[in-house]
């Protein structure tokens, strides 16, 4: 997983708008951002960079294993 957690979200929806792969959605009950599809994250860091309250943490670990060619 790349985007790992959201703490202290104010629900401004900026991250939802900037995410190119629709990883983040707004929870209707809490009115805060949630990581809905973490497997689609491309680790572009746009959500983290545009979050006004620095609520998003990107994990340094990648979930996708590196594919090494034979030979």
């Amino acid at each position, binding site marked *: 997983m790349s985007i790992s957690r959201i*703490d202290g979200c*104010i629900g401004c929806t900026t991250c939802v708008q900037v995410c190119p792969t629709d990883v983040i959605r707004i929870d209707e009950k809490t009115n805060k951002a949630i990581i809905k599809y973490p497997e689609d994250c491309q680790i572009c860091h746009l959500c*983290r960079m545009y979050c006004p309250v620095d609520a998003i943490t990107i994990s340094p670990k990648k979930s996708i294993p590196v594919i090494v060619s034979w030979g």
Partner: protein
Amino acid sequence: MLEKIKQYNLIWIIVFLVGVPLFIWATGEVHQKAFYKEAISVVTILAFFFLIGQSYLTRGYRVFIQKLKMSRLLKLHKIFGYVFVSVIVLHPLYIVLPKFFDNGITPYDAFITMLTTFESTGIILGIVSWILLVTLAITSIIRSRLFKNYRTWRVFHAILALFFVTFSTWHVLNLGRHSTTLMAIYMILVSIGGVFIMMKVYYKTLNKVKEEE
């Protein structure tokens, strides 16, 4: 200094308002960010606990500081008040500080977005708490000009403090990134204890005022 700390039971204030919150913070899950961000978080958490814990440094509760005279207790209350209000007043700016060191949204835009997200209950509570805190500080500084009667001032100060403790605790529970279950429980206990002390003191004070009338 150490003797004074022991003599006046100040060690308990340090344990309850510094030790326990720091322990909960250190054992929480959330600290994965840069050192300066965590340093800001720790300073803010401690300042917040000292502010909601101010009720324990009043005439209503002298268990921690049994040997201290009222004048000294008041001095301590004032020092803690002015120091930690100065820290918390700048709290909205600490939030956007990382944006100075990052590409993406500018600190100014981040600040405006943050303050204008009125859909967030936490933001509204934060703004109300900030206004209450500034009012508490300003009215404390110009107390002699505003109030002739000391007792009226005390009741006014306590009512403002009561609202501040309630709104700020709610704000932290809603938005605080270190508000883990344990931290939330401890915060609520400290706040309820403080509110109870204030209610007890001012219930007595109001009764005395009524009797005098």
